């Protein structure tokens, strides 16, 4: 069971079947939030044996609801500790939500790419940024969390101050990544040269380039204030094929699957031994210090944070 954005090469799954004799049937169930909630509603009679795609923002809810039969693949011991957020599940990949900028348009506006999040409140950046609504978009929520981690509640300058200033600096809000990136971002014909997107968006532009790949990517990534999202796989409680399910989770952390991850889902493999294609490495910015928020804190405060944000920015 997985979400709409899951993508794997056919021959990789075929390799799993020929190794183990187990056929994998993929079941899709909406976006990550919808998928987790469907798994919670059906936990007494699970729809599948393995769930992939629960991320940092929904992990706590899923684990607390008891949908997992706790299992962390032995291979996870090689995975960096900051990705192993809960022993009930196995980290599979991670990616960063970062600001992207349109090189040409920023140059035309006469400003350098922002070096830090705080720069965005400078009048020089007035009317240049589009963000996604955290209530309806997962990168939108990730960016809100990045600001909460960067300007914490107990600091002199809080995330509320930041967003108040951003709202005064004419930030645009789109309801989803598609609208922000394809309609409002100047790179695709809109009028905002800064957009909340992924650190891996520039390599995706190269890989999927229409016609000849351009020599230089025309978008860049701001490496400050990136939110790191980890995606996990877990064995669903109540499965009657626990061994097969565990074998699949192990396989997902194995090299064959891991090396297939970057160019399919545009995220980094969790297994540090997996080789990453050059085109991905060359164009993906690696944030200097990505931020994150404890999943339990996200679960407790999600609704209230979003409500506060809505009051500050939209009302």
């Amino acid at each position, binding site marked *: *069971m997985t979400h*709409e*954005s899951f*993508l*794997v*090469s*056919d021959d990789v799954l075929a390799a799993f079947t020929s190794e183990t004799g187990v056929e994998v*049937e*993929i*079941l*899709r*169930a*909406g*976006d990550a*939030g*919808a998928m987790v*909630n*469907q798994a919670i*509603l*059906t936990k007494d*009679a699970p*729809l*599948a044996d393995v769930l992939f795609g629960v991320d940092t923002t929904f992990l706590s*809810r899923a684990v607390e609801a008891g949908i997992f039969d706790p299992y962390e693949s032995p291979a996870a011991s090689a995975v960096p500790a900051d990705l192993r957020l809960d022993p009930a599940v196995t980290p599979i990949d991670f990616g960063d939500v970062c600001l992207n900028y349109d090189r040409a348009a920023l140059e035309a506006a006469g400003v350098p790419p922002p070096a830090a999040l705080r720069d965005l409140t400078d009048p020089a950046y007035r009317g240049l940024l589009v963000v996604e609504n955290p*209530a*309806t978009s997962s990168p939108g*929520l990730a960016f809100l969390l990045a600001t909460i981690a960067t300007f914490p509640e107990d600091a002199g300058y809080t995330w509320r101050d930041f967003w108040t200033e951003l709202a005064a600096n004419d930030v645009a*809000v*789109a*309801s*989803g*990544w*598609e*609208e922000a*990136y*394809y*309609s*409002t971002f*100047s790179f*695709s*014909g*809109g*009028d*905002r040269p800064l957009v909340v*997107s*992924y650190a891996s968006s520039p390599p*995706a*532009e*190269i*890989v*999927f380039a*229409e*016609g*000849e790949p351009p020599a230089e990517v025309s978008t860049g990534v701001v490496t400050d204030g990136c939110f790191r999202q980890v995606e996990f796989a877990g064995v669903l409680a109540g499965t009657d094929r626990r061994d097969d399910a565990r074998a699949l989770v192990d396989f997902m952390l194995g090299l064959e699957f891991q090396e297939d991850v970057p*160019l*399919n889902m*545009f995220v980094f493999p969790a297994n540090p031994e997996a080789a990453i294609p050059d085109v991905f490495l060359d164009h993906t910015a690696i944030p200097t210090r990505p931020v994150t928020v404890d999943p339990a804190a996200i679960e407790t405060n*999600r*609704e209230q944070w979003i409500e506060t944000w809505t009051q500050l920015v*939209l009302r």
Partner: protein
Amino acid sequence: MDAARPALTRPPPLAGLRVLVPAVFLGWFFVYPLARILGRGMSADGFREVLTDTGLLEVAWFTVWQAAVSTTLTMVLALPAAYVFARFEFPGKAAARALLTVPFVLPTVVVGSAFLALAGPGGALGVRWDESVGLILAAHVFYNFAVVVRTVGGLWSHLDPRLVAAARVLGASPWQAFRRVTLPLLRPALAAAGSIVFLFSFTSFGVVLILGGARFATLEVEIYRQTTSFLDLGVAAALAVLQLAGVTAILLAYSRYQERRTVEQTLRPVAEAARRPRGWRERLLVAGVLGSSAVALGAPLLVLVERSLRFGGGYGLGNYRALGSRGGRGGLFTSATEAIGNSLGFAAVATVLAVVVGMLAASVVAYRRDRVSRWFDALLMLPLGTSAVTIGFGFLLALGWPVDLRTSWILVPIAHSLVAIPFVVRTVVPVMRSVRARLREAAAVLGAPPGQVWREIDLPMIARAGLVGAGFAFAISLGEFGATSFIARPDRPTLPIAIFRFLGLPGRFGQAMAMSVILMVVTAAAVLLIERFRVGHVGEF
């Protein structure tokens, strides 16, 4: 007309099945799942939270008024086109009618991006309408135009033109003849189309989300947020009940009105009613109406075509070629042919389900005029007014027994048919009701048994309406996205799902647009083909 007609005119056979089949279908796949999910979430706290939160009440108010305005605008703007399609013959009419259906099936993500390309940041029209209600209303008109033209135009094309001619001879002006003769006769279809457009706008999701920016929300959007991001089933259930109550009230009022105001009449074959335009006035009218509709509906579609052809700095078919096969660099999760195959397969099953259930149900609604039929009628329409996420989550709780259908592919066409059945019913009922009882009585008096009366008098006319309904059902299934994406399902991407997934990745916009154009072509071709069927010997009905 009076409720108690002599038994011999009461039509068709299969009386028991006519109630049973739709009742079981809707009970199993709509009422029960709905009851389970609402039962799971309903709580006094949820209602309290909704009723005391001014933000949520504003959402409810916005939902109602934007739906009312969208409906009015659509009716007013589409009526001239309905008239032209009903009364005039012109070259390429069948193709034009099929093309008209195209906007109706395009996924909201696609239409949203076309509208933003026209009137968004850096838009081609040079105006900024994004984040305004204007663009939402325009998109609703764009989507629902075909519903009015086809439903109203369908009945209009069968009205006896001699009635208006007679009124004119007796000294009525064209406007008076329209108001006093045509309008009353069209009422069943006007009300039918209006109720569908209202429900569609009332439960609008993607359009509001994409074009309204973050500032507007309908109940549907709010239910989605509460269910999928907060899993707050209490508030979601309270909102869903609010939505259902509103929809039910509208539907009951509609069906009561419908029953009182239907006028029996002799429907005429299209060949008798439609003719080529005569004189410069009529030609100007036909050209003007068709031209302006083509521009208004065509502009967003042309934007999509143009964008699908943008390739590597110039224009070309590269995006289409890229859709040809799976695999390759970066992987392609489905080829265009696979997606077309999946979409056509689901649509065929959904259409059969919708036509069988819808026709049986329509005959109950049309011929039994009592409280039962009124409630039945409202029940049939309810799925249109229920949020996709509510039903999708309800399926999970309700369909595990007696057979576990929760992860079966059949759920996809079933969900599509729930949306399509109201269209079949709405296109068929007005025709069924308008078939003149005297024709039936005459046939019966001449010795035809009830079954034969139904076969020879009702069936040919009804079958034509049924085909229009089938075309709608097929188109609805081809374009359905919301419910499809919520249902946990085996990996068989339909065209809209494929479009959505391409849009989710940077650098694949062109391919998403190419896939959208393919969806447009497939839809137009399918609708054209379905409407080519002719039933009986009464001419084109």
